């Protein structure tokens, strides 16, 4: 997900300008020169300036390239396949969290959590021999800690916890 500086910089310019404009149109407090509009205005302008500086490469000389520690003794890890789809895997965790938001109330905590665990585990390369027991057991363990001990109202849904 390494994007060129010109892309992230331009995005910041747009974001900053939007924030400044958003602050500008906020209603002021009557009879008061400074209100809720000042701070977003200042920040928006600052952000836009930073974005411009990044587009023009100011401060790039300060960046340190990330050092990858090489493995020794020929245990070099296989180079990850560099396809477009492979990069998309990073989006799996947030997607699963959104799935939790959407499904937890209907399916209940246990079922939703089991699906989340199974998918994450498999995506990280676990065989079903590990992923399946993990998906069955860990939701109950988490429910025991958070639902029973800490009294977080976790949704029951299809399969209520046995306690």
């Amino acid at each position, binding site marked *: 997900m390494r994007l060129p500086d010109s892309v992230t910089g331009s995005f910041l310019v747009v974001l900053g300008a939007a924030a400044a404009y958003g602050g500008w149109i906020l209603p002021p407090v009557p009879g008061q020169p400074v209100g809720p509009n000042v701070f977003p205005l200042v920040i928006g302008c600052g952000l836009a300036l930073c974005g411009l500086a990044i587009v023009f490469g100011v*401060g790039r000389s300060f960046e340190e390239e990330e050092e990858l520690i090489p493995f020794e003794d020929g245990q070099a890890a296989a180079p990850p396949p560099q396809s477009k789809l492979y990069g998309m895997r990073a989006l799996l965790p947030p997607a699963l969290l959104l799935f939790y938001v959407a499904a937890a109330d209907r399916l209940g905590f246990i079922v939703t959590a089991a699906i989340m665990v199974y998918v994450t585990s498999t995506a990280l390369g676990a065989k079903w021999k590990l992923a399946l027991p993990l998906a069955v057991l860990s939701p109950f363990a988490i429910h025991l800690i958070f639902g029973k001990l800490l009294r977080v109202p976790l949704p029951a849904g299809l399969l209520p916890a046995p306690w």
Partner: protein
Amino acid sequence: MLKTLLDAFALISTWEVIIAMIAASVYGLVIGSLPGLSATMATALLVPVTFYLSPIAAIATIVAASSMAIFSGDIPGALLRIPGTPASAAYADEAYAMTRKGQAELALGAGVWFSAVGGIAGVLSLMILAPPLAEIALSFSTFEYFWLALLGLMCATLVARSSPVKAIAGMFIGLLVACIGIENPGGVPRFTFGLTDLFGGIEPIPALVGVFAVAQVMRAMLTPEPPPLPRRKFGSIMAGQWKLTKLYRWQMTRGNIVGIIIGVLPGAGADMAAWVSYAMSKRFSKEPEKFGTGHVEGLVEAGASNNASIASGWVPSLLFGIPGDTIAAIAIGVLYMKGLNPGPTLFTEKASSMYAIYLMFIIANILMIPLGIAMIRVATYILLAPRSAIMPIIMLCCAVGSFAIGNNMFGVVTVAAFGVIGYVMEANGYPVAAMVLGIVMGTMVEQAFVTSLIKSDGSILPFFERPVAAILAAMAIGALLWPVMVWVWRKVKQPQTAAATSR
């Protein structure tokens, strides 16, 4: 004074606190030792649990878990050359070189022992520095608070190991996030886009969990699994540590002091302390050529440094609500929740609670020695746990924990969103620590800024009129201009080196 101390003892000698502390210690040791799970993440995932504890027990868990995790990160660093937490990255190579020389016990023992010593030095600094600073802080007006907060934010951008422009941009993003909601000078919905969930603003804790935990799981999706740990038997771990202490007492003291100073600086935490101390150790060593070949000197100094910064990071947090590092940023959230609002009056009104915090830090650092030794011995088994078994559990904890903070699903959405934001920022060289400080301090900065502007009738001059404010302002502006000066210095020097190497 004595009565306060006794009160503090009474506060911490309850079963709840003792159990919470031991459990959090074990938890911190395990999380810290697993590569890819940082001390900040350990603390962030702990927050939902602290909701259900008494204030002192809640702080006890954070104190214990963070101290232990910083030490525990040394273990995989020494055994696998993969630092368990970023704070151990500075000397992971050195420690691994020692292991290859057959001195794993000495390296890990130095990790435990000098971490504990450093931690206690950090607490002493907290005890000595905080009360006099609280006296000074009582006379602060909004002008001073504004500059102090700005100085804090600027320090955070200065120490980031990245482009200062990107760090400042990260800070602005954080401040912008803090703008969301109706908690602003006019009480109008700001940047809420009509969503009622956003009226209360973005809660810092789910944002932190997202940035530090979800983003880490996202990175794990794309990085190869670390190699398994070769099994080994350890000899005596503490043998020879006292000799090292006597031999390297100056290095140790210097490490402690550097760690304390870096911890107090807002935004700079244990990882920075370790890097600086390791570099200093090499620079001032009598035998710098031994560094990198498995020499314990740098380990002593950096180990003493990173743990010292953990405790001293609480100084600005307790006094001003300005976090000394990302862990303290989380701690501040918990302090507010538990009615221990940071500020100078905390030291007069809740003195026994303050003493309790000191005591807990000391106990945690003493506890670190036996628990740390036990952890080193079982580390081989814990590190056997595959990443595909740990990350799913982390995911569940993120989902449930962020839900538990407000008992609403919007917390989970926040976590997911900030996971993506943190991941993208990190991948493109924008330091997330700067954004985190922006989020945590945003409301405070705005309040100080707007109140000051109202008091001064829109004029900028009063911002510099009070002596302390003027000094803080000069420091904040200096911090802003520092990278520019470094850049100019490099430009001046470059023509000569360029001519010499003729590239």
